[in-house]
Each structure stands twice: as structure tokens, then as C-alpha cells.
């Protein structure tokens, strides 16, 4: 064989392994979702997928890439799972039962075709399994990022500044609980999905928030997490056209549109009033505004949609002084009816402080403070300090900035509070 021929063979092998890799990237979550349904077990489905990919890497270079790689991976994965269970049924009673159930079900070509028709449902169900109501919020987030977004345990740990073993433990426990609950088998019926959507939306928004406003650490944003959350939001909108799914995606897009404008090159925070609005991402804003409209047009308005409508008010204001604070206050009134929480009350107080006067805002913030709500929340003290500063109460402002500084966990916010304190000195 000539050197040129050898090189071309090597090139072909490279091409095939690249193709397997790109197929894996585009198809693996869909294939996993379908295998979860066919096999009724998350872990077995993962193993089946891994095995199928390994066989693909072995066979595709020689046999060529199949015309429908997705269907090939699902059917190979299923056979591999039967192999695995056949081996294990000699050891475990549990596996023996499962083996009978899975191997007993016929899987001719027609059935495979039907199985693949359900992929969007399968993906949606996988999200719902990962956000099972009996799982802790931490576990829901970790499982969703790993199983739906294909992040590794180590990546999730880095994103949340925790040890990989902590995340691994969460995932192992979550899977054990799901298996005990038989969650992958007893998937929620279509009629139940909207009721369980809350947990899913909350998980997606938690992921987004951790990316957008990291709760701890050196950097303010972690775009990997915001990107994953937006991707999940799009998936939800595509799979389950619920008004709040539109609202959440709109909210995330409108907030993320300000990403480039809200941090300096040194990683310092730039407040909304000081941001260069030409840096806002117009594409995200246009998409976000359209989604808010679609959500509102359904006639059922939920918390995410109202928050998105508030973000939309900022997005359409040509400059800070043009912000329609009266509309924002009314939207917070509405939000307070949907979610009567002290955090919403605080945000409303700040908006009132802008619509009317700093003293009016201060009165409302003092009410929250006097009740003792959010006493440990640094942003309450920071908001109090800002309003005092604007109302000319320098000493009170200093005390509150100092209190906020004690409670803050994130470095850029700490620097902002220090800057405020220096300005008052």
C-alpha cells in the first residue's frame, strides 16, 4: 500500500470517528430518552447507549454509517441491554424480572419505527423524570444537567463549586430513588404533565440563575449554565407549548441579552442604569418580546411571564430615564398576587422608589426589614442602602452597605458594595 493510500485510509477512519462523535452529540440525548422508555431504567439505558456507541465506533468504519444512525443506536442499545441483563439475570433476581419483561417484548422493525415516533415525548419525559417531585432541588438540577444536557459529573461540580464526589452521590441517590419509585416506567401521563411542569420550570430557572448570577465565586456569570438553561427552555417550548414555558424562555432570553453590558472587562458589575444599551443582544430581545406576547396571548399569565414582561419593559426603554416605572410597578403588583413572597415585595419597593421617590421606596423596604423577612439576604440591605443614599441618609446607607457586605458571597458584588461605601466616606 502506498503512503498516500495509507494516509487516505487513516483519513477515512478519522472521518468516521468524527462522524460517530458528531452523531453522538446530536443524537445521544434522544437515543437515551427513547432507551429509558424501552428499558424502563435510567442506568440500564445509559449503559445501553455507551455500548451502542462503542459498537458504532467498531463497525461504522468498516460497514459504513447506517442511513438512520438514531434508529441504529436505539436498536443496538436495546440488544446490548438484553445482553447485559442476560448476564446479570444469573446473579440478580431483580434483573431477572426485568430481563423477562424487556427481552419478552418483541422488537421487529415496525415496532422500532413506532418507538422512534415518540422521541419528542421521550425527551420531555426524561426531563420530567429528572425533575421528579420526590427528588431534592439539588438532585433535580444535577440529574437534569447530566441526563438531559449531557454534562459530566465533573463539569456540574465545577459549575456549582462543589466536589465531584458530592454531585456523584446526589446522582446515585437520585437514581436509586427513581428506581424505587419506578419512575421511568410509570411515566406521567400527558394529562399530568402540566401539573408537574412547575418543578421542571423551577429547575431550568435555577440552572439559569446560577449561571447568570453565580451565588459564589470569583466570576459573576457562567455562560455554560445560562446556555444550557436556554437550550432546555427551547426544548420545553418545542415539546410542551405551555404559556409559562414561553414565559420562562422569554425571561431567560431578555435577561441574558444584557450579558455583554453588565460586566466590565475586569469583571466588575455595571448596574442597569449605567449599561451601554447598544451592547444588548437585539436578537435575544426580539425573540424574548415575541415570546412574552405569545404567552400573554394565551390568556393565562403566570409568574415567569410577568417577570418576562418586566424584563421586556427594561429591554424596550431606549435609555434608563425612559423606563416606564409605573408599568413596572403594576406588573409587580400582579406578580405579588401570583407569588406573594418578600423577594417580589422587595423588587416592587425598589420600583416604587423609582416611580415615586426614594422615601416612598424606603418606607416599603423598612416594612420588610421590620418584619424580619429576608434578614440574611444581602440584596435587601443593599437596596435599603441605595434608597437611603438617594434620600440623603448617608449614615443609614453606610450601615446597610456594611451589613450587605457581611452577607454577600460573590466577589464582584462585594467590590460593588465596597465602592459604594467608599463613595459615601
Amino acid at each position, binding site marked *: 500500500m502506498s503512503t498516500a493510500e495509507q494516509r487516505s485510509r487513516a483519513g477515512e477512519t478519522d472521518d468516521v470517528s468524527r462522524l460517530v462523535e458528531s452523531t453522538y452529540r446530536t443524537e445521544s440525548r434522544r437515543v437515551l430518552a427513547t432507551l429509558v422508555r424501552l428499558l424502563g431504567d435510567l442506568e440500564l439505558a445509559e*449503559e445501553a447507549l455507551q455500548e451502542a456507541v*462503542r459498537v458504532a465506533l467498531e463497525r461504522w468504519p468498516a460497514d459504513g454509517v447506517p442511513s438512520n444512525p438514531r434508529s441504529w443506536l436505539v436498536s443496538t442499545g436495546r440488544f446490548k441491554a438484553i445482553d447485559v441483563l442476560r448476564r446479570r439475570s444469573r*446473579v440478580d433476581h431483580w434483573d431477572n424480572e426485568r430481563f423477562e419483561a424487556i427481552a419478552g417484548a418483541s422488537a421487529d422493525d415496525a415496532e422500532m419505527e413506532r418507538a422512534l415516533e415518540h422521541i419528542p415525548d421521550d425527551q420531555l419525559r426524561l426531563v420530567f423524570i429528572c425533575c421528579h417531585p420526590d427528588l431534592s432541588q439539588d438532585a433535580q438540577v444535577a440529574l437534569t444537567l447530566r441526563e438531559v444536557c449531557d454534562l459530566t459529573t*465533573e463539569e456540574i461540580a465545577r459549575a456549582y463549586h462543589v466536589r465531584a464526589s458530592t454531585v456523584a452521590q446526589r446522582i446515585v441517590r437520585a437514581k436509586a430513588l427513581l428506581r424505587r419509585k419506578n419512575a421511568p416506567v410509570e411515566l406521567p401521563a400527558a394529562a399530568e404533565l402540566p401539573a408537574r411542569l412547575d418543578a421542571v420550570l423551577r429547575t431550568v430557572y435555577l440552572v439559569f440563575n446560577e449561571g447568570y448570577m453565580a451565588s459564589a465565586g470569583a466570576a459573576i456569570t457562567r455562560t455554560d449554565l445560562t446556555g444550557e438553561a436556554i437550550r432546555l427552555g427551547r426544548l420545553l417550548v418545542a415539546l410542551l407549548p405551555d404559556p409559562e414555558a414561553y414565559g420562562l424562555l422569554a425571561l431567560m432570553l431578555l435577561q441574558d441579552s444584557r450579558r455583554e453590558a453588565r460586566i466590565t472587562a475586569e469583571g466588575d458589575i455595571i448596574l442597569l442604569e449605567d449599561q451601554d444599551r447598544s451592547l444588548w443582544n437585539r436578537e435575544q430581545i426580539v425573540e424574548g418580546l415575541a415570546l412574552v406576547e405569545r404567552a400573554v396571548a394565551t390568556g393565562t399569565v403566570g409568574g415567569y411571564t410577568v417577570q418576562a414582561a418586566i424584563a421586556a419593559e427594561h429591554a424596550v426603554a431606549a435609555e434608563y430615564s425612559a423606563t416606564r416605572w409605573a408599568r413596572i410597578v403594576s406588573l409587580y403588583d400582579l406578580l405579588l398576587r401570583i407569588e406573594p413572597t418578600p423577594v417580589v415585595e422587595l423588587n416592587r419597593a425598589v420600583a416604587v422608589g423609582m416611580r415615586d421617590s426614594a422615601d416612598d421606596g424606603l418606607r416599603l423596604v423598612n416594612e420588610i426589614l421590620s418584619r424580619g423577612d429576608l434578614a440574611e439576604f444581602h440584596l435587601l440591605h443593599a437596596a435599603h442602602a441605595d434608597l437611603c443614599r438617594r434620600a440623603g441618609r448617608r449614615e443609614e446607607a453606610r450601615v446597610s452597605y456594611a451589613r450587605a457586605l457581611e452577607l454577600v458571597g460573590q466577589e464582584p458584588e462585594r467590590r460593588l458594595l465596597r465602592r459604594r461605601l467608599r463613595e459615601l466616606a
Partner: protein
Amino acid sequence: MRYLCLGYHDVDASKRLSSEEFTAIVSHCPEYDKELLASGRVRIVASLVEDEVVTVRTRGGEVTLTDGPCVESKEQVGSFFVLEASDLNDAVRIASRHPAARLGEDLGWAVEVRPIGSMEEYGGV
């Protein structure tokens, strides 16, 4: 990612077993070891001879030998394997199927999973 999996066991508990009992429980391992190797995700799997462990140190420029493992403990490493996994949970899943993690509850069997930072392999001359 590669992970080093160390199979631990309680030395005293193992000694309390008759040699037949010990052979019977250990006999579960080769089958899964074979399965691991066949899966293409395990590069190496080994069992260790434990009675002849020595620890080598340099003290005051002198090489000294001590009998027994570096860390004295009732749990000792009896086997190891190196596996290729997509992440820590994938490694845990594979390790958890090994008899060393699945059996031997009374014998202190456990598998320690350690991420490998760097690994060089002899590629031949």
C-alpha cells in the same frame, strides 16, 4: 476520563473464612473481569498477592524496606482495574457492578474510585 478502581477488603474478616469459602466468593470476580475487558472500557485488571507486600522508602539517603503496606489498616487493596468512563458517575456505575463492590458485605469489600490525573503507557519502540 480514566479512573483507578481499587478493590479493598477486610484482612481479618477474610482470614476467618475457610479456604473453600474464600475461593467460592472470590470466584465471582473473573467473570466480571472478563466482561469488563470485553467491554473495551477497561485497560487493565489485576489481583494482588498480599502476603508479600513491602514498602520502599529513602530515609537519610538510605533505601529502607518495611514489611507490609504503606498505610497500616485492616482494609487492604486486593485488586485493581483501570477503566475508561465518560464521567465519575459512569465510573461508579461500572465499578458498582463489580463483585468487589456488589458482594462481600461481611468481608469489608469496597471499591475506591480515583480519577487519574495523567497516565503514560508504554507504546513500544
